[in-house]
């Protein structure tokens, strides 16, 4: 039941995207995510989808692995879509029966909303699919370095993050083990109503918490024993270096970002007309 969570699911292949510097990937992902909020037209969405697709192909990821992360937010997408579809009352009316009014603007807004969410999650999941948790934490630490000046404990935050990320797979594995053990004693996890299902999870959750606290204790001892925090300046075992690929990737995403800005502020009315495709016989 926890197998489908795509977060932190590094997909281990060797590709140009995997080899990019984690800091660059972080910044470019942020740029990509921001750009998605600027998109205005279907042309913009198509361009974004194309950029995403090219990146997926370059990263040698199966499309399915990216779509899996979208599955996690399907419910949110559905709810948002329904709200948009039924509560936007401006524009030409398409369907009207009793209290239900669906307008053309409503349909367009809904489609764009869904596209936005799907592209957003896909783009963000590309980062975790192509970057190991440790690289991510290191990248974040290095990007947050300026905050040290205002006395933010960046190093400790980074350590907390990398420990948390490091233990996600361990926790999954442990959860599966405990589930197996309780199933072996006849526990059922997918029968009954909501309350009985929650109750059925207790034999899994309690040992999971107990074990996590025990682990945290042990880890704290181990870090103390190795004098964590005794020296001010720790150095990295692997120093990240920017390369040619990072430059190309930056130009690629920055170029895309510029096009999206132009699309929004200079040509917001130039768009592909998809009314025929979506409304068809209705008009």
């Amino acid at each position: 039941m926890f197998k489908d969570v795509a977060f932190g699911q590094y997909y281990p292949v060797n590709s140009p995207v995997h080899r990019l510097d984690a800091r660059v990937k972080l910044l470019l992902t942020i740029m990509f995510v921001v750009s998605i909020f600027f998109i205005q037209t279907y042309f913009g969405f198509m361009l974004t989808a194309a950029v995403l697709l090219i990146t997926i192909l370059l990263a040698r990821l199966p499309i399915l692995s990216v779509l899996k992360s979208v599955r996690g937010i399907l419910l949110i997408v559905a709810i948002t879509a329904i709200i948009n579809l039924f509560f936007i009352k401006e524009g030409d009316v398409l369907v009207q029966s009793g209290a239900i009014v669906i307008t053309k603007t409503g349909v367009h807004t809904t489609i764009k909303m869904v596209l936005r969410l799907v592209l957003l999650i896909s783009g963000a999941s590309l980062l975790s699919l192509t970057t190991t948790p440790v690289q991510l934490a290191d990248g974040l630490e290095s990007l947050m370095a300026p905050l040290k000046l205002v006395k933010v404990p960046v190093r400790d935050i980074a350590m907390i993050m990398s420990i948390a990320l490091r233990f996600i797979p361990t926790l999954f594995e442990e959860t599966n083990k405990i589930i197996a053990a309780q199933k072996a004693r006849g526990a059922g996890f997918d029968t009954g109503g909501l309350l009985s299902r929650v109750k059925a999870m207790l034999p899994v959750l309690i040992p999971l918490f107990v074990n996590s606290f025990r682990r945290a204790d042990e880890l704290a001892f181990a870090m103390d024993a190795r004098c964590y925090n005794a020296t001010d300046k720790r150095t990295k075992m692997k120093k990240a270096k920017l390369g040619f690929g990072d430059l190309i990737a930056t130009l690629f995403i920055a170029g895309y970002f510029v096009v999206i800005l132009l699309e929004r502020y200079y040509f917001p009315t130039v768009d592909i007309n998809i009314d025929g495709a979506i409304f068809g016989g209705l008009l």
Partner: protein
Amino acid sequence: MSAIEISNLNFVYSKKTPNEKQALKNINLSVEEGAFLGLVGATGSGKSTLIQHLNGLIKPQDKKRMSVVVNGMSATDRKNLKKLRFEVGMVFQYPEYQLFEDTVAKDVAFGPKNMKLDKEEIDRRVRRALEVVGLDYDKFASRSPFDLSGGEKRRVAIAGVIAMQPKILVLDEPVAGLDPIGRREILALVKKLQKEVSPTVIIVSHNMDDMAQLADRIVALKDGEIIADGTPKQVFCNRNLIKEAGLDLPTATSLADMLIARGVELPRDIVTMEELAKELGASLRKKRSQAVADDNDETKIGEDADGGFYAESYDEDVEVEGVEVNGVEVNGVEDPDGEDEDV
């Protein structure tokens, strides 16, 4: 009737991903009722994957070609699943990490409760299970399992499985992480459980000494394949095979090899310490009586001897022979005592 029949079993983890891993390859195994089977193999050889097929925690990936039948029930059949879970008691590695109730008695009752037994029967089983594993009911029943010692926790966890009164008991490395006394107690307990609760036992272990002593059949896995199946003597005395499987020889077997390399006359199929002690005693007695006989001959031609001489001449004898044999490296047994070779 055999308790377990497995045929053509293959298993692949994470199919069609870069992490794809074939954990089991063409496993055919049949286990008789009443067997005490030791499952051995290096880490990652597929032992845990194999045993989880026995109670349907993992299902065969191809229902047509593979089959797992336990006590006449097919493990591929969904409607057998619950029954299977109760007939095959599975004690996982570090079972104490799965305790969750606030009292020992409640935790042990979890299995029987899931069996939908009535309250009296549940109470009876909890009481009996705790007593079988050697925990006094009145003293432990209302304590929190989290306040117990490591060994006690493990007993509670085992009691939780025993309370279902499974016909087959499967234990995955039950002595991992215990001190020597703890491990001896748990192993003795497993033997007792076979007699009193579950007639068929499968035990996964890394400790060849324990297996040689306890099991009446050994199955060795390597990279998901069965590479040996037989009595402890048959399996452990095949030294090349044990090495190939990435396992250790039982201590008694490797000690016997070292002694043989030094010229002590011993049979080559020793697997337990008891056997070694017996055979070594016999061998020494024989040697000594020979020495006495030789000495008597020598005395006849006029040389003197006292009690201490026998011992001395015996010592020298062994050392000299040992060097000769060591020179050609018998069986690749390493000489732990480098000084000998310089003699």
